[in-house]
């Protein structure tokens, strides 16, 4: 017994010693451990971000020797630029098509999966598959699927007597077609996040609802499930919106913003201005706009996450 006590006291003394050690060396160790990260974060993240804001206030064309400070001229020009305005509208439209649909479909599939016990993992896996798959390759598969004559989509529509379209070449259908691919890709992700949310609802709440007479599936859904999922919906919607704002691969491969500007989206405009036309200053201004939108959404996401943690 006393031996145990002694070794315990020894251990305490040693722990104190270790504490002192940690205090003494903390600064030095901390620097050694952090140094590479700190350096790389500054060089690869912080400075480039300031750089974008600085370049956005110049008229620099990549490769030209001279550049001038032009203040906010690029942003004024953006405001008047038809292609840029089209890309903002198209992006908004794309987000509005993709976000609610993928959240609602994700919810429905999650609810159906959770309503039984068998093959849960199989169904979850199958629906999540598109999220994993290399989008640039799958875009090529979608192109074949949407092919005006030999594509499965038009063949099926023809068989059941519905009108067909040249989906990716028609200004009226190009952006909606890309949005459908976006929904197809992100649906499984929203489903997985909602499934996690469903699992975190305490069983006791359902019991309480049953005591209050709400034991039909539908009333439990309205009284417990949906209200409890509230913060999750917010979170999932923001994640989906972030992914929708970052849509690029399908645009680059399938439509290149066309026909006309009908599928021009923000990130694609950023790419063409910065890296195809080499209008560096102007491209940087587009980048600033993109950054403000995405950073705003990410901040909002962090706040909803804080709340979610707080509740649980």
């Amino acid at each position: 017994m006393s031996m145990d006590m002694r070794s315990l006291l020894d251990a305490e003394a040693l722990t104190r010693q270790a504490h002192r050690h940690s205090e003494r060396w903390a600064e030095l160790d901390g620097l050694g451990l952090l140094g590479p990260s700190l350096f790389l974060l500054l060089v690869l993240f912080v400075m480039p971000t300031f750089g974008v804001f600085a370049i956005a206030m110049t008229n620099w064309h990549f490769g030209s020797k001279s550049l001038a400070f032009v203040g906010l001229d690029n942003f004024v020009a953006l405001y008047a630029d038809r292609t840029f305005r089209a890309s903002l509208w198209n992006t908004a439209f794309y987000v509005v098509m993709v976000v609610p649909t993928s959240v609602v479909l994700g919810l429905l599939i999650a609810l159906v999966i959770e309503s039984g016990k068998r093959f849960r993992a199989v169904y979850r896996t199958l629906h999540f598959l598109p999220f994993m798959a290399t989008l640039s390759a799958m875009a090529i598969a979608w192109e074949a699927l949407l092919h005006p004559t030999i594509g499965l989509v038009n063949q099926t529509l023809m068989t059941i007597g519905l009108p067909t379209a040249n989906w990716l070449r028609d200004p009226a259908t190009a952006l909606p077609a890309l949005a459908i691919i976006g929904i197809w890709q992100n649906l499984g992700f929203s489903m997985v996040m909602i499934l996690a949310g469903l699992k975190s609802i305490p069983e006791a709440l359902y019991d309480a609802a049953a005591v209050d007479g709400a034991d039909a599936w539908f009333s439990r859904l309205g009284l417990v499930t949906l209200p409890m999922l509230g913060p999750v919906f917010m979170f999932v919607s923001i994640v989906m919106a972030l992914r929708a704002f970052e849509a690029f691969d399908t645009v680059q491969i399938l439509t290149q913003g066309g026909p006309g500007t009908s599928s021009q989206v923000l990130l694609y405009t950023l790419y063409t201005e910065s890296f195809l036309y080499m209008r560096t200053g102007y491209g940087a201004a587009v980048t600033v706009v993109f950054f403000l939108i995405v950073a705003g959404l990410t901040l909002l996401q962090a706040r909803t996450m804080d709340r979610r943690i707080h509740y649980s």
Partner: protein
Amino acid sequence: MNLPRTLWQLARHLILLATAFVVLVPFIWMVSLSLKPPGEIFQSSFNLLPQTWFAAENYAKAFTSAPLARYLVNGVVVCSSILTLQITICAPAAYALAKIDFRGRDLFFDVVLVCLLIPHQVLALPLFILSYRLGLIDTYTVLILPFAVSPFGIFLFRQFFKRIPDDLVYAARLDGLSEFSIVWRLMLPMSGPAVVAFAIFSVVSHWNDLFWPLIVVHSDRLMPPALGVMAFRNEQAGNDYGPLMAAATIVVAPLVLAFLIAQRWFVEGFAGGSIK
């Protein structure tokens, strides 16, 4: 009471099989076309399986008319280098943030949090200019180096490291382990799930990334899979569907197979990854 339940369970399977089928159609169509000869592809009637099997020809052509194998090797080289660098650089920083009390720690963590706000597409333009100045365009370095540090990695590892009891750290110090060995021999091994989740997150992101490689790589021999398959399609003018679908299948296959084998890890990795 029991009959509606049984009926619903049946309906549940029917609904989920139907939605799963719709979700899988692009994969099925892609693989189906990759097995068919040109004549059958351009036929208006639809069969899932070919009448004449043309798989060998299509896949052989995919590998010979484009450096498809090279794209895959590039993908492996780039993804594994990025992951190794990220873990080597982020884990010590996360350990310092989680377990060492030093002046400026909160400030450093704020820097990490701010960097979490910055999407990579925003960094593309300045990093492109920097790479150009350094003569790094069209090299492996430019595909790897910009991702050497991951704010998300630091954030995730810090969360896991914080849960490891301090006493273990003190004990390890008493045993004479250096701070770096504590990271490698204590922190990382005890954070298995975090390492797996981060590895999946990182590899999937970079295998699938098209944006950055498109900007900085022009020659075939350096293209990662996502860019390579696009280049292949552009060169084929999208007409030779069989080999094109074979190439797309090959590019998609590694992650899909890995996912089917370890689906639980993937799903959890991404559910966790969504906190980014």
